[in-house]
């Protein structure tokens, strides 16, 4: 169970981006978080993935409150999350070949010996051909790079997937392909999913349940979210 309770977070304590946001994702559940751009939903996703320490509020992971974020979080806890971001160009280290990109979490956690088996298997899952694996990010297209980023998120077999606008930059076919990969993984492992996006049709189709930002953070930030309680 992933529970976000009354989270307030931002980059400046005086003007938090997220105010009093609450959201729950049950194990195996796929929740879509829908909201306009700039409303703070990406920040909330970063909080949920233990990548951004909130100013206030609690994050409960299977009932126990999380006390540390980023590097201070226990490694087992932060590797329980697989994260995919909106822009593949920015979320891939420009110097690493795609195969190293996918294998990096295994190296970082000292599981080098799994690389020869796990990387080709995952590359095949996300639809990357072996010749693409030897290239660097600037030599492949956005869609191919996002496939590699998804493979990297799956390589440690996370129990939770956080997809922050994963498909916003992609064409329809690649979107459908990546969503299918995520759904196959979830069907096989029972992982939970928090998918953040602004496309209602996509999230409705993809997730078990779609929640709108206005219901997640009712206080909202003045101006950014129109005060329409009748959603």
């Amino acid at each position, binding site marked *: 169970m992933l529970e976000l309770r009354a989270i307030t977070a931002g980059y400046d304590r005086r003007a938090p981006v997220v105010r009093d946001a609450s959201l729950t994702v049950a194990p195996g559940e796929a929740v879509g978080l829908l909201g306009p751009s700039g409303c703070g939903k990406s920040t909330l996703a970063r909080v949920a*993935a233990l*990548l951004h320490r909130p100013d206030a509020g609690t994050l409960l992971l299977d009932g126990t409150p999380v006390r540390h974020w980023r590097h201070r979080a226990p490694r087992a806890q932060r590797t329980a999350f697989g*994260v995919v971001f909106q822009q593949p160009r*920015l*979320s891939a*280290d420009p*110097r690493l070949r795609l195969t190293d990109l996918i294998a*990096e979490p295994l190296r*970082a956690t000292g599981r080098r010996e799994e690389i020869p088996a796990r990387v080709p298997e995952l590359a095949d899952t996300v639809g990357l051909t072996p010749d693409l694996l030897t290239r660097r990010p600037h030599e492949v297209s956005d869609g191919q790079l996002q496939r590699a980023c998804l493979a990297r998120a799956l*390589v440690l077999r996370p129990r939770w997937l956080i997809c922050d606008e994963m498909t916003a930059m992609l064409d329809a076919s690649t979107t459908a392909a990546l969503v299918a990969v995520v759904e196959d993984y979830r069907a096989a492992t029972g992982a939970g999913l928090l998918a953040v996006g602004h496309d209602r049709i996509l999230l409705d189709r993809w997730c078990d349940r779609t929640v709108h930002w206005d219901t997640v953070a009712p206080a909202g930030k003045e101006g950014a979210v129109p005060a329409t309680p009748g959603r």
Partner: protein
Amino acid sequence: MADTTVEKTNATGAAGAAWRGHGAARRSTHTLRLRVSAALVAVTALAVLLVPPLVQLDQQAVDLSAKLLPPGWSHPFGTDDVGRDLLLRCVYGLRVSLLVGVVAALTATVIGTAVGATAGALGGWVDRAVMRLVDTVSSVPHLLLGIFIVAMFRPGVWPVVVSVALTHWLSTARIVRAEVLSLRSRPYIDAAVSGGASRWRVAVRHLLPGVLPQAGLAAVLMIPHAMWHESALSFLGLGLPTHTASLGTLIQGARGSLLAGQWWPTLFPGLFLIIPTLAIAGLAGVWRERINPRRRSELML
């Protein structure tokens, strides 16, 4: 654009098509600049590496009968006020100046990169403390600080290196810190953290390789700067002992004769200082264009 060549080739389509190139003129000055700079740097490097082992210079030898000869066949650059051949002394001086420049620039870059990367990667109070220290040091005029450091040691090459290195890592530290800070907010660092990477691994695997090109560029640009500093210190009589040929001591020693109309003892060491500076700056400019991501992506389509 339109004046470029029209080339006939088989198109992948049905019939042959006329391919037109675009904007070929812009590249030629670019390659010309690269070649001239590279050639000058190569000549400089060869001269300082090969000449001293081949032609010995007795730093102390004087020949007053041949003093202040204008440039001519036997002495292409003329002689100085105690009759020493200026060409040879210029090459030896350039050797000392380049040695000081390269070693000092490398040291300064290593210090600067380490300090800047630490500050940028750790952030928080470490960053603030380190950067205040940098601000404090850089608030002292660095020539003054350099003079102070040199004055603590006996004259020689190494005090000059130490002095130049210790006063020049500040800008590199600032550049590296800014670069690390901008890289640190990239999603790929987030992805690495989420993938279980430790602080050390993030710094060594993702941040440092990202700033090395910038740091290297800073180092290259610092070589001429360090040479100028060595010359300035020597010119003030604080750096190398006066009989040792360095570009600074050469110019300093020739100050008196310049007023009497003998221009060559100052002109040639000055040129030896300026030409490698321009050549290195030219190479660095090409390098900067190469590491500029927009240009690279343009070549990649």
